[in-house]
């Protein structure tokens, strides 16, 4: 086979449509007779609903309908729990899920109270002002510790407290380990992750066709199959009557998977009621409230060590802000709990978390999905230990790395995919060494001293992490050779920029000897592929990619068999390349793949019993557990010691995600993740007041990094294949975003000599103003 594209930086199949403005995004869907929806959202974070009266709104010209919760009748129900609690002993989980429209109570700013349907979005927004609402405000639960105290207002009265979940996982015996330790270091850490804020917000278009008895829903979802199944059930339709299409989606990053959003539930119902297509496009202001967040955790963590810096154990008790409802179960804090262990040997571990209900928007995974929080705690503990034990921070990490012969490495606790946290493969030290080399670690201290003489304050940070990727349950793919020789690949997951249209084509191209550009990939359309889970947890390439590979392999076999029958020779004598099957050494004896496909779908004759027509195959891949990627980031910053302004001088990422399908697309994923990590560490902060009001709900004040804040990044990678799938690949989507927090803390401390001045950076995000406040009373 000559056209080997696997591992090559193949340019993307999907680019032309995107570069010329021809790709279909949700707001581009225009249907005859389409109406527009706007939602009235609560301005209070916590209140009883005394009155909602939509009658004036209905009188406005151009308004077609307006609904409140009571209008939905039996259709109104709380959403399903998407991820049930994992099988951990002693777990407490109080399931409370979001509702399509608030009834009796609102529990966060932005919770929908009513929906208005009008001829245009402009008129629908006018009509929102017509709706009369009386809310009796209640004290808002915002502070996690206060929310758990006796006498706090309750987000859900019938829970009896604000505990959404309580989980303890242990390994070994931490207390015994700490008793024997030379050093025990304990600190409180605060880590806040922010919102995904993709450049495209969410949207739903629902079209009920009463005559065809079909519901079509366009949705910016990362999980079209689940949305189809759930909505069909809710609407009382058969699954096959419902088609969910995730078109081109302008960035997902996690929160576009969370379902069921109220708008996903409402729009199809309204469409059926009015027998008209209905469109809702989230505006940027809504996005700050109506799309899920990640937010903060407070950790009281301690590490027990020997005096040469070996970890004996870690104990961590943390609070996790889950928001007003918990449909996504415990995924985020479990990720924090598990990912804290990192690439290190931690013989004893005692980790407890409480997920707290708050009167704030729902928290669900956003790129990193809680891993950031855990990594921050571990990396900071190691830095604190390094300082106290007078060991170089990189050296202390090196001493604790899991050795390469210890894999598969069982961490002894349960991960988000419900199986035991086991790292499939890894070789951590070379990744660290490559990063140190690339950042110039050995010569940095001299460079730092020389710069200091010129009045410049440089600092360095190095942080390591692992990333659990590629979890089940499964994905599927259908690969089909068409009679024109082109290949079609369909899979159930959606695409939000990850290059699936190219990467999956590369996988199929190598099996079928067809050019990547002759492979047409369809993702995110439930009529094209029926089964699947979705795009999340860095699993697309691993799980769907492997399904594509399996299906393509079967098609390859079928093609060879057909050609073998045609040429009356053994399949071993055949080769597939350039879209043809030919006899080895006799290239003029060939048949085109397209012709084989035609042959396999005869107009006359018979298709043998036990076989299928066509040159196609549908295969599924379900990994028994997730594959663990890892990486090290290193960064040099320059700080202005008076203004605390920060400039990144150098940023290095060394990453191992096993076999690489397309290095160009992989690099793009890392770049984007790093940018979000930089935003998380130093620019993005949700400023809630103590009444649950968001003070910076605009892109002018929620600061996404621009081309001036994100530096040039240098990337390298190593390849430690995963034994869990035939291609040996691991996921990479979240890697760039994970270690930014500890990296910034370390580098800033170094640049400003904070440790020497008695200041420790134990929180993220940081900012120049925050650094000023933290250091104003320090020495020097």
């Amino acid at each position, binding site marked *: 086979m000559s056209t080997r594209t696997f591992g090559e930086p193949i340019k993307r199949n999907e680019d032309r449509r995107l570069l010329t403005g021809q790709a279909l995004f949700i707001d581009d869907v225009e249907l005859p007779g389409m109406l527009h929806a706007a939602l009235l959202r609560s301005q209070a974070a916590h209140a009883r609903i005394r009155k909602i009266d939509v009658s004036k709104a209905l009188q406005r010209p151009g308004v077609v309908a307006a609904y409140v919760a009571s209008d939905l009748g039996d259709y109104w129900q709380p959403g399903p729990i998407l991820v049930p609690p994992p099988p951990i002993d002693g777990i407490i989980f109080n399931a409370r899920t979001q509702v399509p429209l608030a009834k009796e109570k609102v529990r966060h700013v932005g919770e929908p109270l009513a929906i208005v349907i009008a001829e245009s979005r402009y008129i629908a927004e006018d009509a929102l002002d017509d709706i009369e609402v009386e809310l009796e405000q209640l004290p808002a639960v915002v502070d996690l510790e206060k929310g758990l105290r006796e006498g706090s207002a309750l987000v859900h009265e019938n829970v009896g407290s604000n505990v959404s979940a309580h989980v303890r996982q242990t390994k070994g015996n931490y207390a015994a380990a700490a008793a024997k330790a030379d050093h025990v270091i304990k600190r409180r850490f605060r880590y806040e992750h922010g919102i995904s804020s993709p450049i495209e917000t969410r949207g739903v278009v629902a079209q009920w066709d009463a005559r065809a008895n079909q519901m079509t829903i366009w949705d910016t979802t990362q999980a079209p199959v689940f949305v189809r199944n759930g909505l069909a059930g809710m609407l009382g339709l058969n699954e096959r009557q419902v088609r969910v299409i995730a078109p081109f989606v302008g960035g997902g990053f996690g929160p576009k998977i969370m379902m069921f959003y109220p708008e996903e539930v409402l729009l199809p119902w309204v469409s059926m009621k009015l027998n008209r297509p209905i469109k809702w496009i989230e*505006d940027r202001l809504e996005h700050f409230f109506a799309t899920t967040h990640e937010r903060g955790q407070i950790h009281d963590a301690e590490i027990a060590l020997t005096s040469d810096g070996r970890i004996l154990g870690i104990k961590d008790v943390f609070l996790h802000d889950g928001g007003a409802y918990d449909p996504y179960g415990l995924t985020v804090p479990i990720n924090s709990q598990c990912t804290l262990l990192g690439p290190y040997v931690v013989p004893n571990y005692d980790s407890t978390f409480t997920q707290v209900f708050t009167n704030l928007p729902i928290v669900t995974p956003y790129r990193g999905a809680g891993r950031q929080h855990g990594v921050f705690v571990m990396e900071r503990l190691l830095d604190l230990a390094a300082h106290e034990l007078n060991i170089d921070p990189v050296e202390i990490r090196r001493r604790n790395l899991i050795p390469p012969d210890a894999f598969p490495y069982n961490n002894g606790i349960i991960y988000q995919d419900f199986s035991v946290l086991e790292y499939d493969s890894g070789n951590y030290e070379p990744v660290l060494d490559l990063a140190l080399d690339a950042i110039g670690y050995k010569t940095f201290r001299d460079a730092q001293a020389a710069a200091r003489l010129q009045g410049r304050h440089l600092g360095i940070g190095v942080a390591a992490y692992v990333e659990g990727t590629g979890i089940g349950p499964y994905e599927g793919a259908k690969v089909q050779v068409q009679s024109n020789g082109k290949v079609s690949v369909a899979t159930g997951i959606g695409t939000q920029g990850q290059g699936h249209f190219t990467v999956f084509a590369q996988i199929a191209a190598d099996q079928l000897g067809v050019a990547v550009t002759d492979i047409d990939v369809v993702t995110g359309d439930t009529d094209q592929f029926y089964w699947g889970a979705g795009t999340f947890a860095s699993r697309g390439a691993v799980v769907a990619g492997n399904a594509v590979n399996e299906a393509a392999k079967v098609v390859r076999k079928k093609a060879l068999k057909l050609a073998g029958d045609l040429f009356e020779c053994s399949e071993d004598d055949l080769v597939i390349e350039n879209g043809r099957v030919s006899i080895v050494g006799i290239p003029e004896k060939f048949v085109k793949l397209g012709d084989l496909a035609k042959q396999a779908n005869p107009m006359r004759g018979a298709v043998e019993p036990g076989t299928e027509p066509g040159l196609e195959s549908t295969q599924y891949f379900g990994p028994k557990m997730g594959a663990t990627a890892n990486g090290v980031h290193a960064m040099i910053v320059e700080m202005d010691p008076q*203004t605390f302004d920060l400039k990144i001088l150098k940023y290095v990422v060394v990453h191992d995600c096993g076999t690489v399908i397309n290095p160009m697309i992989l690099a793009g994923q890392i770049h984007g993740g790093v940018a979000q990590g930089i935003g998380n560490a130093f*620019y993005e902060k949700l400023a809630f007041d103590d009444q649950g009001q968001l003070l910076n709900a605009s892109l002018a004040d929620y*600061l996404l990094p621009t081309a*001036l804040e994100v530096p040039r990044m240098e990337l390298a990678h190593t390849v430690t294949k995963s034994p869990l799938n035939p291609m040996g690949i691991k996921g990479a989507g979240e890697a760039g975003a994970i270690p930014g927090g500890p990296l910034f803390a370390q580098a800033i401390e170094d640049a400003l000599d904070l440790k020497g001045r008695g200041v420790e950076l134990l929180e993220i995000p940081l900012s*120049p*103003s925050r650094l000023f406040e933290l250091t104003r009373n320090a020495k020097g």
Partner: protein
Amino acid sequence: MKPAPFKYIAAASLAHALALKSEHGDEAKFLAGGQSLIPTMNFRLARPAILIDINGIEDLAGIRWSEGASRLGPLTRYRALQRDAAFTLAFPLIGEALPHIAHPQIRNRGTIGGNLSHADPASELPAIALALRARFRVQAAKRERWVKAPDFFVSALTTDLGPDEMLVEIELPLASPRTGSCFMEIARRRGDFAIAGVAAMVTLGDSDECSDLRLAFCGVGETPVDASAAAGGLIGHTPTEVAIRDVAAAVQAMIDPGGSVHATADYQRHIAGVLTGRALQTAYRRVRDGH
């Protein structure tokens, strides 16, 4: 985020625009660049019943020169100022501040008159207007008056303009020869509103002692702050590091910043002091070294 309904009128002339504003008063707003107004309308924070589009009144745009001053039409776009080499040479404070105002796309539409009339406390140009001792000509249908810059900025987002008035001319006196200036600001990202910004001008006499010092801040109060008095002690002397530090301390004592989601008031105060020192040093160096 769609704006509420309004009646739109494209004014054919200044007289037309002023007549309309006379008729409708506060119910009407002028639409110039729209870069501040339209976002507030899209958020529905502003809901003018009438929008008077003045973009068609060509006479309102332009950079003119008279004896000792430049006279700007209010409709002059930031971009036009940036591209006029003679202008930025004569007013280096503005030249240095313009790259800090939002981004090129905004600067292609935004106008100096719109910026000054909007009076955002973090905005650079109002502070520079104070430093330059600018005067504004304000016109209504049947009257006209001149307002000195300090009297124009009343409080956050509030100017001295009456309900029937428009800012129609901005007079910027030329600086004395032997003046060095420096504009600096601290913002979270380039183009963001300033956490604090300073416009400094140092004029030297024959023996290199300061004969005039101008110091004005944005971002640290409800209006731009003229802190020139804090530098009064430098007049008649050569600015030393110690003397400049005293000025910085005086500035810090003088201002009352309000803090924001991006910075505490104490940080703003601290930055104002840091910027004072740096801007004065730079302005002084520029004139002393014959910049």
